[in-house]
């Protein structure tokens, strides 16, 4: 950090360097730190009409946080959101590890290039549009139901939309890249001779993955899991489009606290509860994979 600063100063001089520092500081303070501090302050105060704000009832309290436990419906949605995000993460890992392995270790030349393009192009399209395409696929008379009916696997169209599985499918699809690339990155640095050596010593393919490739890819797997989980837990668009009243996501609860109940204080408290759960998940992942911050940010 010190080295970076002194090299910047050498190149641009003292005045420009202070300007850069001050603008960065203002940006961080004004757009990141202060709003968050404000939300923390909100979350510990009761929701009061403007007249009573600053009055004797405006005291710090944990009531907004406790409110989640007092509301079984919201609590259930919260727990389901955490659990479902974990499920999305696990599913994405199972789907993406083979893809990443194939890309990193087996695909060569044109095949690799085409696969990369096939993976990246969907991400040029807006997330909401991509999610809408799943609406068409999963609709009552959509692609999946047409195929199932034509094959005679079902007599009646199946209702997918508005259910939790629909949301999970949409999310796994939406976050595939965030899981593939970190794993791809870490697998790419694996010496192919290690895989050959393991094979030569008699290991079947699954043991090569279990003992050689997966341990090597651990930092990438941890990063992929953290990103996917955070995105899944924090998404609003996908449950809003693919879900229904019975499959509400906790972000939707937070949204309604802010913009429907106009209770910013409780909304802020809910948002922080979600944030703390996510941080807890990161800590758990890092513990589980025995990786440290230096490895993850590498």
């Amino acid at each position: 950090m010190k080295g970076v600063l002194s090299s910047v100063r050498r190149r641009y001089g003292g005045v420009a360097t202070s300007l850069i520092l001050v603008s960065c500081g203002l940006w961080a303070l004004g757009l990141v730190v202060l709003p968050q501090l404000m939300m923390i302050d909100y979350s510990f105060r009761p929701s009061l009409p403007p007249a009573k704000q600053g009055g004797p009832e405006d005291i710090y309290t944990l009531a907004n946080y406790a409110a989640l436990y007092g509301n079984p419906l919201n609590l259930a949605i919260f727990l389901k959101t955490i659990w479902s995000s974990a499920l999305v993460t696990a599913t994405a890992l199972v789907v993406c590890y083979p893809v990443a392995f194939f890309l990193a270790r087996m695909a060569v030349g044109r095949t690799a290039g085409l696969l990369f393009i096939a993976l990246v192009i969907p991400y040029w399209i807006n997330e909401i549009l991509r999610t809408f395409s799943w609406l068409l696929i999963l609709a009552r008379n959509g692609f999946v139901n047409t195929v199932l009916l034509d094959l005679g696997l079902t007599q009646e169209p199946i209702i997918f939309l508005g259910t939790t599985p629909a949301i999970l499918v949409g999310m796994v699809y939406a976050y595939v890249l965030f899981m593939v690339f970190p794993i791809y990155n870490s697998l790419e640095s694996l010496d192919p001779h290690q895989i050959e050596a393991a094979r030569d010593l008699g290991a079947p393919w699954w043991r090569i993955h279990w003992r050689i490739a997966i341990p090597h890819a651990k930092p990438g797997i941890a990063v992929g899991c953290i990103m996917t989980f955070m995105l899944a837990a924090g998404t609003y668009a996908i449950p809003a489009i693919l879900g229904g009243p019975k499959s509400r996501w906790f972000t939707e609860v937070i949204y309604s606290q802010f913009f429907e109940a106009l209770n910013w204080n409780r909304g802020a408290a809910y948002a922080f509860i979600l944030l703390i759960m996510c941080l807890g998940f990161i800590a758990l992942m890092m513990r589980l994979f025995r990786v440290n911050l230096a490895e993850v940010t590498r």
Partner: protein
Amino acid sequence: MQFSRKLQVGGRDPALGQGVSLDGVTMRFGDFLAVDDVSIDIAAGEFFSFLGPSGCGKTTILRLISGFVEPTAGRILIGGQDMAGIGPNKRPTALIFQNLALFPLMPVWENVAFGLEARGVAKQERRRRAEQLLELVALDGSGDKRVNELSGGQRQRVAIARALAVEPKVMLLDEPLSALDLKLRQHMRAELRTIQRRTGVTFVYITHDQSEALTMSDRVAVMSQGRIEQIDVPDAIYNAPQTAFVAGFVGEINRFAGHVVAADARHAVVETDVGRLRGVNRQALRPGERASIFIRPERMRADGAANPADENSFEAVLDRVGFEGNVVNLFLRTNAGREIIAQQHNSDDLSGLSSGAWMTLRFAPDSAAVLPAEGRFEAAA
């Protein structure tokens, strides 16, 4: 760093080697012919080396024997059994990679025991066998270390122990010493040879380093451009090369190109730019054929008398003297500008030599080889 005298590994008899046969093996990668119709029989328990420049196909042969690639044509047999369709994890071979390919995330003992783990040996037994093998390669007590805590030579020995753990019938080594410094390399040569003798495992060794191949091997196959040039015991490879490539690739050699003017069953005479030279006619050359005659520097006798009268003698002017202690290299130049090296034992006769002196060089016909000048060797020589 002596290996322990312990012969037995894991309480079993030392694993005895099996022979390897290549029968008309050809390997193509697209348009590139990496291995061209190679047939060899490597005996059980033999230390066999493939020697050749990089890109000559020797590594491909090793990968064919280990099973990582299947030959385009031909058969590979190990212990008399056809290996077609048998994967590398099912063959009785163990490969030591050029970069060793140790597993950096496992402690040393798990590296050594990896093959046993793959065979379903219980953990306690694995640990015990790993310790025995580590003792065999003089690394006892290093089982719990990380691979990156070891020196280059120690890693080398972990790789050997890891390969021995699976009790292979054939050990395949892909230039495993090339990353070591000279002194350690020479030491490891002797140790590899000792391990090979003690275990009785067949060693197939790949190298581009001729002294490595000549000092360790029972037999050497010299390869060039996917083909076997010569298979022989080390001293025949050096003293009786069968092709111009072998003569030029292995060791220093003086070469005179020309054409054959006289030949019989034993000798051939080549007309060169220093006159007519007689050498052993191993390839039954006939008069008129293009050929080169090859003479080792240590077979060249040089003396001050400037009177070339006999056969197999010619004049050259001394360029410089390279003093190496026990031997002295004389660098000379012929009238035609050709550079000659003559190696002499250090003696009083050599004192007082100075650049610019004319000398007469001689050699015995039996110490020179007349070999066909084939186009494809011209570039290499």
